């Protein structure tokens, strides 16, 4: 039984890792698509979104099976609950990558002003998001709660860039009236990236939630006194 | 994984030895049954001719060359009863003590060892001991009392053993169940353990009776009369007994030729009594078991 449950968990972990890589690639290519206005690449992303969705469903059903068959408790339970939530967060991030790709595919302009892109810090935002994704993937695979917690702060910068973007776009649109539709649509990209940051924050919290108790438990002597107090209270 | 190479035709050999083993077991079992039936058949064949109402109800006459065996039947039944009165209370109580009160410890191991040894003592030694103690020392003389006491001693190990075994097989959870309700040990034994052990105890008792009824040696010096045609009037009287009667008329009779049919008749009656007792044991056992199940 020990072996079974262990190998099932390893399997789930591997699936989530694959899902993660898939979503990371989607987002990475979305960035390229935006920066180079590559419609073909954007179309590929849109097509591949279906794989992300399918993967999400598979992980969901595997988690369901696992819970039904193995009655996980304690760290196992927290792990699969975390997986369930991380899975849906990743799927949403995939959705955003897809949305950004659609923006690139459907926007009716030949070129985006380089100055505008720089002012908006689109690339920085993508870099941040991708960094967070990567860091969290590592934290998840290495069961490193501290690494996951470190990501929590990075979210603020995304918010800042996004807030600034609104003014910049309005300004730009004022001066380039033919770019109004572009600016209007472009706003969506920032919203999506900002939302991605929220989901990444959630993922970070999930990872901390599932690992945290386990980490505490490694230093028995110290937590003996820590854990006694809630018992005594009753 | 590579599967091992099984030796050729091993299955066949396996099945063949299986068949041979079973055949052997069957033959031996049938052989036992055959021997039993042969003995039984022989006795019936030889003895059934003399069985009649008179044979069962008349005392022997003409120097035991004719007449019946009534006093011997009565004597045997009396001895069975007497030994039961001696052995059952003592034996059952010892059994209970050993299993319920002191099932561990050196004293019980010692008692158990002694009872085991006691059951290995030849019955003639019991007879000798009975004669020395009851007949001579206590002055009971050759009597039903002395005979019953001796036979009682003889069957004691068996009674203790069966009681102990019967109680040992009762799962301890029943004892705990009773004790956990605030019952004392005595209440537990009396109300739960004994009723549960009863079927097997009774079976053991009856089987010990069967054994007693067939014993010759212990009553040889303590009780049995060579010829005592009237019925005993008190427990200090001697009496006749079937096995002893059989022994006497087959070895030192006045006319062994003429007495032979009587001997077979006596044997038949003795076997019949033992058979009845054993059947009774089976019946009692089933009765008590059913009562436990459906009461």
């Amino acid at each position, binding site marked *: *039984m*020990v072996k079974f*449950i*262990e190998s099932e968990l390893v399997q789930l972990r591997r699936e989530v890792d694959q899902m993660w890589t898939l979503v990371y690639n989607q987002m990475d290519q979305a960035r390229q698509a935006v920066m180079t206005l590559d419609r073909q690449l954007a179309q590929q992303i849109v097509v591949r979104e279906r794989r992300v969705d399918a993967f999400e469903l598979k992980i969901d059903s595997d988690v369901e099976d696992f819970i039904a068959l193995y*009655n*996980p*408790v*304690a*760290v*196992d*339970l*927290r792990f699969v609950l975390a997986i369930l939530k991380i899975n849906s967060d990743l799927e949403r991030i995939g959705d955003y990558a897809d949305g950004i790709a659609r923006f690139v595919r459907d926007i009716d302009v030949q070129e985006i002003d380089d100055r505008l892109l720089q002012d908006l810090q689109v690339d920085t935002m993508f870099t941040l998001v991708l960094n967070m994704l990567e860091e969290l993937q590592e934290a998840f695979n290495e069961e490193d709660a501290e690494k996951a917690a470190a990501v929590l702060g990075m979210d603020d910068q995304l918010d800042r860039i996004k807030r600034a973007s609104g003014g910049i776009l309005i300004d730009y649109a004022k001066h380039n009236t033919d770019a109004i539709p572009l600016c209007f649509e472009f706003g969506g990209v920032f919203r999506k990236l900002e939302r991605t940051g929220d989901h990444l924050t959630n993922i970070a919290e999930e990872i901390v939630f599932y690992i945290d*108790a*386990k980490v*505490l*438990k*490694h230093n*028995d002597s110290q*937590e003996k006194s*820590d*854990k006694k107090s*809630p*018992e005594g209270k*009753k | 994984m590579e599967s091992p190479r099984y030796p050729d035709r091993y299955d066949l050999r396996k099945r063949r030895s299986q068949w041979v083993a079973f055949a052997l077991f069957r033959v031996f079992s049938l052989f036992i049954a055959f021997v039993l039936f042969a003995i039984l058949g022989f006795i019936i064949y030889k003895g059934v001719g003399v069985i009649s109402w008179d044979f069962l109800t008349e005392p022997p006459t003409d120097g035991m060359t004719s007449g019946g065996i009534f006093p011997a039947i009565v004597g045997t039944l009396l001895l069975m009863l007497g030994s039961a009165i001696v052995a059952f209370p003592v034996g059952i109580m010892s059994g209970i003590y050993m299993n319920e009160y002191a099932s*561990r*410890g050196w004293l019980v191991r010692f008692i158990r060892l002694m009872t085991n040894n006691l059951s290995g003592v030849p019955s003639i030694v019991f007879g000798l001991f009975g004669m020395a103690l009851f007949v001579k020392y206590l002055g009971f003389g050759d009597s039903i009392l002395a005979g019953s006491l001796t036979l009682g001693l003889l069957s004691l190990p068996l009674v203790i053993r069966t009681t102990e075994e019967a109680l040992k097989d009762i*799962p301890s*959870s*029943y004892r*705990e*169940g*009773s*004790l*956990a*309700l*605030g*019952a*004392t040990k005595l*209440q537990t034994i009396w*109300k*739960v353990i004994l*009723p*549960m052990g009863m079927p097997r105890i009774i079976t053991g008792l009856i089987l010990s009776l069967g054994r007693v009824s067939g014993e010759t040696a212990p009553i040889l010096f303590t009780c049995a009369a060579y010829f005592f045609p009237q019925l005993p009037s008190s427990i200090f009287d001697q009496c006749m007994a079937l096995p002893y009667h059989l022994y006497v008329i087959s070895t030192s009779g006045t006319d062994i030729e003429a007495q032979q049919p009587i001997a077979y008749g006596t044997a038949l009656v003795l076997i019949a009594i033992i058979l009845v007792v054993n059947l009774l044991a089976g019946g009692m056992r089933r009765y008590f078991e059913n009562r*436990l*199940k*459906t*009461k």
Partner: protein
Amino acid sequence: MKKIEVKEVDFYYGKFHALKHISMEVEQNDVVAFIGPSGCGKSTFLRLFNRMNDLIPGSRLTGQVLIDGRDIYAPGVEIDRLRKEVGMVFQRPNPFPKSIFDNVAYGLRVNGIRDKSFIAHRVEEALKGAALWNEVKDKLKASAFALSGGQQQRLCIARAMAVSPSVLLMDEPASALDPISTAKIEELIRELKKEVTIIIVTHNMQQAARVSDRTAFFYMGEMVECGETKMIFTNPSKEATQNYITGRFG
């Protein structure tokens, strides 16, 4: 006042140190589950509360076990009175070879109650309390052995409850039963906790999780952890506990 207080109890079978320095408290009307691998001492510990271990020669206890503030191991404690106060249900159903009625009445009778109408009243109450009354009310005179395993176990619960204990010890009460009977017993435990404080030993972790308010994990004669059941099954504080409940033992 706590219903049960165990203060620094050590327990020995001869030289074997079966329970090591255990202290715990049990609240009135709580259900406390003892879990742990076989031989960890949880059953031994359970049997301290009605002094069932007294039956084992060479057993020795140090420390105190207080029920309602009274040390049940103090000299002068009458064991049969204690056992009326602390009922017990065993792993295998062990109804006596008597009628259903007599089984439930047994505890009352051995404790000297003769009043027929009172006995009849208590038997009915106890059988109702054990959710068995409707199934047996027409065959009270029938042998207890005629009941199914699950019914027998509920009969044993009724039997224990008939003498109105304030604590009920249950030693793996459902381990010999099928899932439906098990569910009934578990339901019953939730009902009974309104009247009594229950301590249950179980090998079925899910059962402990379902029925108990608090759970204590035992290992090698020590109480490794005792806490709210929710805590134990979501976030135990000891690694040993976690390894045990997640099935990664050893």
